[in-house]
């Protein structure tokens, strides 16, 4: 253990005893010798919430908001649908810790151990080109954050949400928690009480940029809950493309990721939010992601989920302005012991709105992939249209898939399509590829890559490469 400075020695020792038991079977399951400098210890009480807020030197209203959320969290029941969460030990989590006590703007200043982690994760491949404009989350806190000149010149604000609360308190106060209310679900309440880090982006009116804004996340301590809070506001006629990727090391006990994301897309604006997550097989990823699209605005979710123990994630778009568009394109891969319970929610609340959900999933070695989605046409949704498409490949007999679509239609003048398909790897395709000398494992991988290609082609190139690598890794050994 390094002699890292710490404000909480007792807790630090406790951490030492529980440190890294490196996952042998998980490529990204390594851990670096980064000692968190500050932590609130295990478990959650009102005092913890106050401590987090004080440590961050927050305004009164945020402390009060956190406290209300904490009480809401205590009262709310666990979700009454979806996967079993009874193994999730919420009393034994670390709710807050900080890896470094200042923000890094310059890559050179980032500590070597953290750099090594990013190197081994392949982050530089995805980030080097854009490094100047990236922020990466490491242990509940933004470690480096270097705003690209172009973003600044354009007036785009890109920082951690903590920072934004200090620098742009009015904007944060105006939007924070208005789309995802603290009482939306138990984990939204939990996040509202203990949130830390996450990305804040504000794109001013008329500002458009094609350069993706990227951020990389990583949990790196056993039992550390990660509760980012992301807030994106795309003002009228502006456009933004935000990309985040996550991987986590493989520790011995369960870890929780409960993020809240709120995205506001104003009139004629465009937002694409791309996520690739590759949690290690002990992480519960229980997220609440919601966007609002106003008149003629477009919101696109692109969401890739590999790994985790259990993922529950149903990004939604509230189509609140006439002519608004919402899309969800997702890929989920579930291996042994993994439950991917994902979907989307499209709420058509204005005339002539349209939505599209394309969900692709792969289940293997007894994994479970479920699609759970909602499409709602409110009374005022004349002329609206929704398309839902679910495609699943089951790699073997033990793996499962469920499609749970929920449609609520309160207007007669709307149209909706739904297609669902579950298949196996086609024998005919496999035979054809193998007849050219390609071994079965490689042939299977090619077919799978082809299956997810409609998804990967939407990603920035570096991420497509990384996702392909991750999926190839997941598929290894899946052919007998």
């Amino acid at each position, binding site marked *: 253990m390094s002699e890292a400075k710490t404000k909480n020695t007792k807790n630090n020792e406790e951490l030492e005893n529980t440190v890294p038991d490196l996952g042998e079977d998980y490529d990204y399951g390594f851990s670096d010798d980064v000692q968190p400098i500050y932590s609130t210890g295990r478990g959650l009480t009102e005092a913890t919430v106050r401590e987090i807020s004080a440590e961050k030197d927050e305004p009164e209203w945020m402390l009060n908001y956190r406290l209300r959320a904490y009480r809401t969290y205590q009262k709310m029941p666990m979700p009454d649908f979806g996967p079993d969460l009874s193994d999730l030990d919420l009393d034994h989590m670390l709710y807050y810790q900080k890896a470094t006590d200042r923000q890094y703007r310059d890559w050179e200043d980032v500590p070597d151990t953290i750099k090594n982690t990013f190197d081994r994760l392949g982050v530089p491949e995805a980030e080097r080109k854009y490094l100047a404009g990236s922020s990466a989350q490491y242990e509940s806190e933004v470690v480096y954050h270097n705003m690209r000149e172009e973003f600044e010149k354009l007036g785009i604000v890109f920082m951690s949400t903590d920072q934004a609360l200090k620098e742009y308190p009015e904007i944060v106060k105006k939007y924070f928690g208005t789309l995802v209310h603290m009482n939306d679900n138990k984990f939204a309440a939990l996040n509202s009480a203990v949130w830390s880090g996450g990305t804040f982006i504000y794109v001013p009116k008329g500002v458009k940029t094609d350069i993706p804004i990227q951020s990389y996340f990583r949990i790196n301590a056993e039992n550390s809950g990660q509760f980012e809070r992301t807030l994106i506001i795309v003002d009228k006629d502006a456009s933004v493309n935000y990309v985040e990727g996550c991987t986590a090391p493989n520790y011995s006990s369960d870890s929780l990721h409960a993020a809240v994301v709120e995205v506001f897309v104003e009139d004629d604006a465009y937002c694409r939010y791309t996520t690739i997550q590759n949690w290690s097989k002990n992480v519960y990823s229980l997220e609440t992601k919601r966007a609002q699209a106003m008149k003629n605005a477009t919101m696109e979710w692109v969401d890739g989920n590999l790994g985790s123990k259990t993922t529950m994630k149903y990004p939604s778009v509230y189509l609140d302005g006439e002519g608004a568009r919402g899309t969800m394109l997702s890929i989920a891969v579930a291996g042994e012991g993994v439950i991917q319970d994902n979907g989307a929610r499209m709420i058509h609340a204005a005339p002539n709105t349209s939505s599209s959900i394309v969900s692709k999933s792969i289940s293997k070695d007894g994994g479970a992939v479920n699609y759970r989605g909602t499409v709602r046409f409110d009374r005022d949704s004349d002329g609206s249209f929704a398309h839902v498409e679910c495609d699943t490949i089951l790699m073997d007999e033990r793996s499962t898939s469920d499609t749970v679509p929920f449609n609520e239609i309160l207007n007669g003048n709307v149209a909706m399509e739904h297609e669902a398909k579950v298949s196996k790897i086609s024998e*005919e395709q496999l035979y054809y590829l*193998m*007849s*050219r000398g*390609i071994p079965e494992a*490689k042939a299977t991988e*090619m077919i799978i*890559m*082809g*299956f997810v290609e409609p998804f990967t082609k939407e990603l920035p190139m570096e991420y497509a490469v990384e996702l392909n690598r991750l999926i190839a890794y997941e598929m290894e050994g899946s052919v007998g």
Partner: protein
Amino acid sequence: MANLTIKNLHVRVDDESEHKEILKGVNLSMNTNEVHAIMGPNGTGKSTLSETIMGNPRYTITEGDIILNGESLLGKPVDERARAGLFLGMQYPAEIMGVTNAEFMRSAINARRPEDDPISVRTFIKELDKNLELLDMNEKMAERYLNQGFSGGEKKRNEILQLLMIKPTFAILDEIDSGLDIDAMKVVAKGVNSMRGADFGALIITHYERLLDYITPDVVHVMMGGKVVKSGDASLATKLEEEGYAGLRDELGLDVKLTDED
């Protein structure tokens, strides 16, 4: 010189649609530097023979052997047979979404090379461009998804393109001429002829004599009722064209029903 020998091959198919013995003792031997043609009426087992040689798991060998250079191929999976030197140009190649033609061919070539020595992109592209030109194919074909939305003719050309890229020892071409107009057939023939030489042999399965006007075979075999009933030189094809399969059957005194007579 390489050799491919089929010995007393009996093959059954047992699946939802069919339960029967299709090949009833096929014998055939060919070397590199030779082109053999197999002709025969519909439903006589020509495609079964080619798929069985390649190792399609749908077909079960009940008797006999397939021997490549003295070594039996029985029990070997299709990819091993391919790497051992066999290639099957298929009648109905599969369509694969999301996998480009170029990516597919590169993987096929690399499957034959040591893992740490893949073909260089440059060499691959040079070779690909040369063969696309030879087959009068658009460059864009390389970047399209494998057989996805290809016309019948495009699929056939694409099979020949793979043949030229992979350079197998023995190619079995299963009705590569079906559905082709005369110009397309000439292009396909040009491709196959460009492969002819000491290191290559082809077994061309066809229903009509027409293709053999462009690829002159060294040996012609006629299959009927699951067996090779007659072999000869190129003139046998011409004779068949004139007299028909029924004529040959009657001449040989065979008790075989031709499906076309139904």
